[in-house]
């Protein structure tokens, strides 16, 4: 009998430990430091499984929330719940509904179904969802994948990253010495391939303008086939793939795989150390790489950014000052929702003529003169 008790105690201790480890952030939602939240506008956010410190879209979304609070700390307070698995989405949203949140921000298109269901059932609550045009074919609410009318109380925040991807591709084509540039994705999903489409388009456009023949390794907008790590966590895979590209002669790499890009950066660093000079460089994605991965800043020509932060902040503020309208916000070059990051160390290395061309190009995309093609439209 004693033995049985020991086993039970030991295994439950183990389980308890496991539970603590994986879910302690979710059980202790972070709130603002102010002790009283009564009467204040409450902005609430449900993270994806990546968690609040994913250096990617969850982190950017939370920064947007915090910026909204900073804009008017006397009126707005923000908090978040972390999802440990997709099974947490709906319960987390329900928990926030119970707390009378002024707006509930959900992060990532995987949460479309949970958000859509909650929004339909609670028409008086306000929602915003990041990286998803809710109800559309690319981000359907129903499990069958059929498009439906989006609920009016949801603000869909999407980003036309084909536009700044295009600028990135053009820049890469202008900067390559070997005539080969490369890109790879984390998984073949629309929010990833739209970047790769833009990058590919940009290189082709440079070729047509300058009568060059710069190759894109790892992706083709025409055939929609190319290189993927099939994981957003396998850094070693990102490194091996980048070594593959470098061995094939590519000298600018554009990983679209979140943190896996760190593996690519390591491969770039190793190749440059082995060569004794900075022959291979890269571009970061989603955020300004010189801020999110500063140790590799000197290899980043630029970053192809997605302005999640600003969009989330805007959504929270409109909900607070009663100008919330729902519908779809599309981040573009025109409204600054997508952009190329500053060149940082490359400011003096990117020729002035190329910088001028990029500015012209940006205006032409804004005016609609150039329409970068993509098979994953927002």
């Amino acid at each position, binding site marked *: 009998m004693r*033995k049985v008790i*020991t*086993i039970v105690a*030991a*295994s439950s201790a*183990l*389980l308890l*430990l*496991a*539970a*603590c*480890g*994986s*879910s*302690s*952030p979710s059980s202790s939602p972070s709130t603002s430091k102010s002790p009283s939240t009564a009467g204040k506008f409450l902005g609430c956010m449900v993270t994806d499984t*990546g*968690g*609040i*410190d*994913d*250096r990617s879209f969850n982190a950017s979304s939370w920064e947007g929330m915090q910026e909204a609070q900073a804009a008017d700390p006397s009126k707005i307070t923000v908090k978040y719940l972390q999802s440990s698995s997709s099974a947490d989405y709906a319960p987390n949203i329900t928990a926030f509904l119970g707390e009378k949140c002024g707006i509930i921000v959900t992060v990532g298109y995987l949460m479309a179904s949970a958000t859509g269901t909650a929004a339909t059932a609670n028409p008086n609550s306000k929602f915003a969802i990041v990286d998803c045009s809710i109800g559309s074919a690319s981000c359907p609410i129903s499990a069958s994948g059929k498009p439906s009318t989006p609920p009016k109380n949801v603000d869909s925040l999407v980003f036309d990253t084909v536009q700044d991807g295009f600028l990135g591709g053009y820049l890469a084509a202008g900067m390559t010495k070997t005539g080969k540039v*490369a890109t*790879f*994705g984390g998984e*073949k999903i629309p929010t990833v391939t739209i970047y790769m489409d833009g990058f590919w388009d940009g290189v082709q456009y440079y070729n047509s303008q300058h009568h060059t023949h710069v*190759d*894109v*390794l*790892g*992706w*083709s907008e025409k*055939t929609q*086939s*190319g*290189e*993927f790590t*099939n*994981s957003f*966590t*396998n*850094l*070693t*895979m*990102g*490194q*091996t*793939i980048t*070594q*593959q*590209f*470098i*061995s*094939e*002669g590519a000298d600018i790499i554009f990983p679209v795989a979140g*943190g896996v890009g*760190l*593996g690519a950066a*390591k491969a770039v660093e190793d190749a440059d150390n082995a060569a004794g000079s900075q022959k291979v460089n890269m571009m970061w994605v989603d955020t300004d790489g010189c801020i999110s991965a500063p*140790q590799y800043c000197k290899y980043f020509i630029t970053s192809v950014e997605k302005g999640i932060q600003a969009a989330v902040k805007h959504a929270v503020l409109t909900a607070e000052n009663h100008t919330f309208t729902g519908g779809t916000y599309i981040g573009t070059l025109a409204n600054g929702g997508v952009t190329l990051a500053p060149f940082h160390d490359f400011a003096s290395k990117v020729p002035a003529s190329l910088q001028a061309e990029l500015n012209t190009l940006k205006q032409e995309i804004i005016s609609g003169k150039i329409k970068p093609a993509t098979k994953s439209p927002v």
Partner: protein
Amino acid sequence: MTAIVAAVRAPIVANRRLIAAVTFVAFGLIDILIFGLFSHKGDATFAFSLFGAKVTVPSLHVPARPVTYALGIASVLIGVARATVTESKLLKRLSIAAVLLFFVLAMLLWSDTGSWADGIPINVITLMQGTLAASIPLILGALAGCMGERSGVINIAIEGQLLLGAFTAAVVASAVGVLWLGLLSGSLAGGLIGAMLALFAIRFLVDQIILGVVINLLISGLTGYLYDRLLVPDANTYNNASTFSTVKIPVLGDIPVIGPIFFDSTIFLYITYAAIILVQVGLFSTRWGLRVRAVGEHPSAADTVGINVLGIRYRNLILGGMLAGIGGAYLTIGSVGTFSKDMSSGLGYIALAAMIFGRWTPLGATLAALLFGFTTALGSFLGSITVPISPFILGMAPYVATIIAVAGLVGRVRAPAADGKPYLRE
């Protein structure tokens, strides 16, 4: 009795022969009809030197279409021979290997002559280096599995051992600044999980499968939590390790082609060589190995002759865990230098599969892991030249190839008889 068995077995044998033959012919026809007919004119190029290497080996130019046809016809002939002639076991295995090799070659020839390839050569060295890079954690993990299961304890926790090894190695190497200490502590972390696994499985008789899964969840949560609270806020101190640089073995490393692939790598590859040999020889040619296998097959008999059953199980799980911990350390200080959440990405489960496919032998497990690594590297090459094959198909290719090869080459596998059964003295 024997007659009945023979009567039942005869059609099975005939069926197997037919299935094998049809499969071979099908592969041959794919070679001819898809890769041959749709191949483009011109030569595929196999390069044997790295980009910018000082001493270069001339590239090999292969006329794609005729060679693809030849490979396809050869596969069909092998299939016909399989159906008509009674072959020895060795010949059967060789024919499977040949058909698969021809298929891969035909695919490479087809893909490298396509308009999408833009004249990029198939770099054999990169392909093989990629294979080894992907295989190292799998091999070390699979060896850990072998050590445990040969002594009768199932180790599902390889995934957790890799992950904690990766985490500990990165943090220690980063905070202390000594890579070797990182390697050592990563290995010890793996051993610690081995000890935990042993304690709960042997002392408290917890179901070994559930135990392993729970440990994996525990480690994923624990490292994820510490990552958020410690590594992200203070990345420079805790998550900024350097990595082992490559060491070229004198003489051997200068051999063209072979040298850069096998003898010009980080310490992890050499540790892996040593580990494979040690575990293989240890398990099958030493007194220790004999005892381990006795404990795994028939613990009560082993106990009767005075072998310390539980002691051997404890020791094997801890030693195996240390190997897997080294595999984990490879993921950080052997390759990318930074830890990130759940970066073992399921490699531990693949290592487990490699061990089973390798029939619980170190050499077999190594071959299975290499096959998996090769298909991964191949997929990565094909993706880089944007071959018009769906990325989803390329992504699942390693799994499919492993299943086919194992079904064909390995056949029925048998686990150690006492695998997963706790030993209790009567």
